[in-house]
């Protein structure tokens, strides 16, 4: 760092809103739950892997819903599984976000013909971002995460609560 800049920094004031700082913190550390229901879980793994490298956006996986901010519903949700996913969602601490990954969790997808598949995870829990594809490529999921970050950036928690 430049010498004069380093000298000036301690006495510098930054003007921003509390909302902006909170949102910046939230969007920069979106820890997602290590959880995949079906095929999309493999692409979720690849997205977390070395090539797509989701870590660079501050998203790392956690094994416990108590430590996660983001639930990526990766894959088909059956009726038997739906209540468990709702419970997982409820176990997460606020603020929490949901990305619905792939056709199956968006709307039932290919398994719309089946008798045991939930037609869309949004019937059970609220969804922030839908990522289309069967399965979506890692690039598509990364884009979904960036869209979610932009969404969080515009949130006005304090204004709404007041």
């Amino acid at each position: 760092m430049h010498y004069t800049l380093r000298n000036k920094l301690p006495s510098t004031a930054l003007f921003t809103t509390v909302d902006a700082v909170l949102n910046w913190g939230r969007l920069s550390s979106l820890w997602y739950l290590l959880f995949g229901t079906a095929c999309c879980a493999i692409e979720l793994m690849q997205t977390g892997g070395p090539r797509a490298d989701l870590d660079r956006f501050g998203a790392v996986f956690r094994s416990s819903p108590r430590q996660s901010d983001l639930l990526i519903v990766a894959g088909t949700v059956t009726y038997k599984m739906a209540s468990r996913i709702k419970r997982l969602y409820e176990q997460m601490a606020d603020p929490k976000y949901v990305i619905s990954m792939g056709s199956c969790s968006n709307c039932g997808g290919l398994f719309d013909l089946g008798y045991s598949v939930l037609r869309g995870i949004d019937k059970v829990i609220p969804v922030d971002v839908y990522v289309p594809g069967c399965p979506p490529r890692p690039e598509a999921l990364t884009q979904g995460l960036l869209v979610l970050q932009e969404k969080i950036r515009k949130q006005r928690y304090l204004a709404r609560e007041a």
Partner: protein
Amino acid sequence: MQPFELTDLGAGTKEMMLNMGPQHPSTHGVIKFVLRMDGEVVAALDPDVGFLHRSIEKIAEKLSYPDFMPYTDRVDYVAAMNCNFGYARVVEKLMKMEVPKRAEYIRVIVAELNRISSHLVSVGTFGNDIGAVTPFLYAIRDRELINDLLEMLCGARLTYNFVRIGGVAFDLPDTFKEKAIAFLDTLEPKLKEFNTLLSENRIFRERLAGVCVISKEDAVAYGVTGPNLRGSGVDWDLRRDEPYSVYPEVSFEVPVGGGLVGKVGDAFDRYWVRIKEMQESAKIVRQCLEQIPEGPIMAKIPRVLKPPAGDAFDRTEAPRGELGYYLVSDGSSKPQRLKIRTGSFAAVSIIPKIAPGWMIADIVALIGSLDIIAPEIDR
């Protein structure tokens, strides 16, 4: 290592019931295990399956024969090509259809490439379950290269829908051969690197030596197939013993578990068989790329497939064991009944037999080494 004897010490302790899954990092998908625990030792284990029952077999009855092909991708999404292959074969058997030689070679090439990528996921996640996170990232990195190859071939990375009834969808692109050989050339050193990282790691070896041994008799009695069966020391591989497609025209060895660090049939043996199989698959792909003839890639098939009434069963060697399709036709354009038998289903059925007496941490090693996958169990 030996399983613990459960004895009542008269201390008035009670067994505890513990739910493992459906959301658990080491259950490999949505499977639940209900464990009865005596302290840290498992007294009984009960698998609760069906969290990913997507009614694939019922959907088969609603669709025409070719329309069902995308669904076979989802039977085992880590090895979709092998599932495509098996389904195409059973319909061809029912229709008594001849498939062009070139198509058969392409099928074997993609199936073996997919076997490598499936085993990479298997050994990578197995290391991850045991506590070694880095090898997982190495495996995922190498898997991307296979994904690139198959993407070049058919445009999809995971669910290919590439094999057709009567042939394959596309011919090999011009540069496929060079790229595939370049990949195979890099695979060998990468496997060596992987071995130094994980297989020769003393912690990993001693952690798995003699853990959760499946005896030869048990493996056969429970119908365990594939690498898990070979890990128990049974020399049985459909590709060699019941040869299909062009497997008789290539030479390869069938790796069998030999108790390298512990007893025959322990968790390490099952892991080691998969590492060896990747090398053999690489050999098969090399030979196929050399021997592949010119010619058509699709047989002449009618616009609407109407197999004669009757039934057919066909089994192929998929990465998770024998994949059997049983198809009943009533002469119409839709199957009357399709039954899919998978290797993971047999593998999960042996877990309650092996688990009692082992610590809960060893159960994770057992599940990881069996390489079960949820959609294959539930379908």
